[in-house]
């Protein structure tokens, strides 16, 4: 896309930043989105923490599990909803008629989602330490690598999914049909290795179980990145596919019919 800027045009970075700030403002002003974003994972953590309160081994599973679920919900689910809504409302079409470069616009929107991911990971880590006796992360670098990769992977898959969702009314059906089975088989609430073999086989082909493994390694077990190479490979493969589908199917306009 040619970006022949005339003199005095705002830079790409300043436009992305402007969009990001607007998205943050709108996020905080929409109480239900803010609530679901932060209360839900904390509620899950509190419930399962209470159930497993006597068993540190289970608590060590649930904290990185919920962290993985948070990455999924703040990026994959949030962007699938958001992009569908904005496409249907005509906001994408309106933005396309302005000088805002598409890349800067998407960066602003994705930045908003990623900020929520970061806030949740911090919240969950602190709650894990304070309430559930899970120690501070053993390997912060490894934690960062997995969060960043997980965000890229699930953000692109969320945008890609929005292309398939026909309208906003059906968005939650589409998102939950993926979100719920995936968190259940990927070991958010228990050690995925204890699941039946065929379910575990499916989970191993999907990215979330590897993200949770990685988070668990970084936060609890202290296993290094080199122990997670095949898992990283699966996540990267899904990211590449997600980005390809996200870009290829992108539509700024509501489908007619």
């Amino acid at each position: 896309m040619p970006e022949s800027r005339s003199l005095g045009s705002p830079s790409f970075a300043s436009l992305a930043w402007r969009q990001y700030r607007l998205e943050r403002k709108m996020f905080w002003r929409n109480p239900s989105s803010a609530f679901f974003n932060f209360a839900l994972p904390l509620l899950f953590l509190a419930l399962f923490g209470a159930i497993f309160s006597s068993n540190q081994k289970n608590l060590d599973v649930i904290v990185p599990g919920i962290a993985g679920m948070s990455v999924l919900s703040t990026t994959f689910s949030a962007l699938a909803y958001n992009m569908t809504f904005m496409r249907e409302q005509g906001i994408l079409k309106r933005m396309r008629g302005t000088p805002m470069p598409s890349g800067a616009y998407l960066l602003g929107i994705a930045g908003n989602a990623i900020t929520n991911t970061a806030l949740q990971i911090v919240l969950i880590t602190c709650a894990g330490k304070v309430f559930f006796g899970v120690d501070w992360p053993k390997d912060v670098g490894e934690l960062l690598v997995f969060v960043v990769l997980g965000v890229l992977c699930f953000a692109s898959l969320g945008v890609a999914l929005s292309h398939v969702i026909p309208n906003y009314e059906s968005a939650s059906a589409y998102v939950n049909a993926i979100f719920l089975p995936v968190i259940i088989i990927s070991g958010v609430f228990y050690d995925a290795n204890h699941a039946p073999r065929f379910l575990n086989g499916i989970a191993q082909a999907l990215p979330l179980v590897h993200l949770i493994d990685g988070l668990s390694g970084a936060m609890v077990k202290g296993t290094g990145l080199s122990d997670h190479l095949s898992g990283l490979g699966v996540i990267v493969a899904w990211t590449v596919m997600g980005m390809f589908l996200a870009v290829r199917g992108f539509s700024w306009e509501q489908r007619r019919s």
Partner: protein
Amino acid sequence: MSTEKAIEVRGLRKSYGDLEAVRAIDFSVRRGEIFGLLGPNGAGKTTTVEILEGYRDRSDGEVRVLGHDPQQRSRDLRERVGIVLQSTGIYRHVTVREVLAHFAGLYPHPRDVDEVMELTGLGGKEDARTRTLSGGQLRRLDFALALVGDPELIFLDEPTTGFDPAARRGAWDTVRSLKALGKTVVLTTHYLDEAQALADRVAIIKDGRILVEGAPSELGAGTGAAYYRVSWRNGDGLLNQRETDDPTRLLHELTSDALARGQVLESLSVTRPTLEDVYLQLTADA
């Protein structure tokens, strides 16, 4: 290519599969004029305008908008064009002022946000969240968002749908003030009185072709629509109507005949066909 022209279109075609939505149309829009694009639903108006706006790629032909090929979607062009789409949402959890300031920040030389709110009749609504606005107010916000970048060329797609009569007049004044500032306006509308009141020139599109193009008051000529219509009531109150290209002669015949017989021609009037007459005649299914 002439710099006098804001838009030049030659041999423009657009097909969707087997359907030919636009079939080789030519027209141009001069700088500083208000150009109306009229036609029934499905005539190819919106397709044509969306090609000019850069939303769709053409199948064939040549298009220049402010010297650019809109398909290239150059940023320079988008900084100089303002678009009011038919029905588009806007961010819901921000105030009128915030969303206008956001859009102003996308352009190199935006207009003053307060001034734009005043111009579009949004004064007093600065701090209202957009989701609390009425349909008419949202439409004004559409206007304001299209004007805040101070564009040279403005596309208005059905700008006054849903307005009450007073609000429509207000919107018309806004459009006229754009013209006074030397802006070029491309207007698509279903309201023929709107085109007649605002447009310097109009083109009527049907089935993907331009049927006629010209100033609204002169469109009747050469289209088969008679140029003058003379009507009167005779003694028993019956309405008579005659169409002619030479009203001087017809009036002379009628009035001398009436005088000779000592009669009065009640409600005598000479009218030229309105844009609506021409439009209905041209677009009637043959």
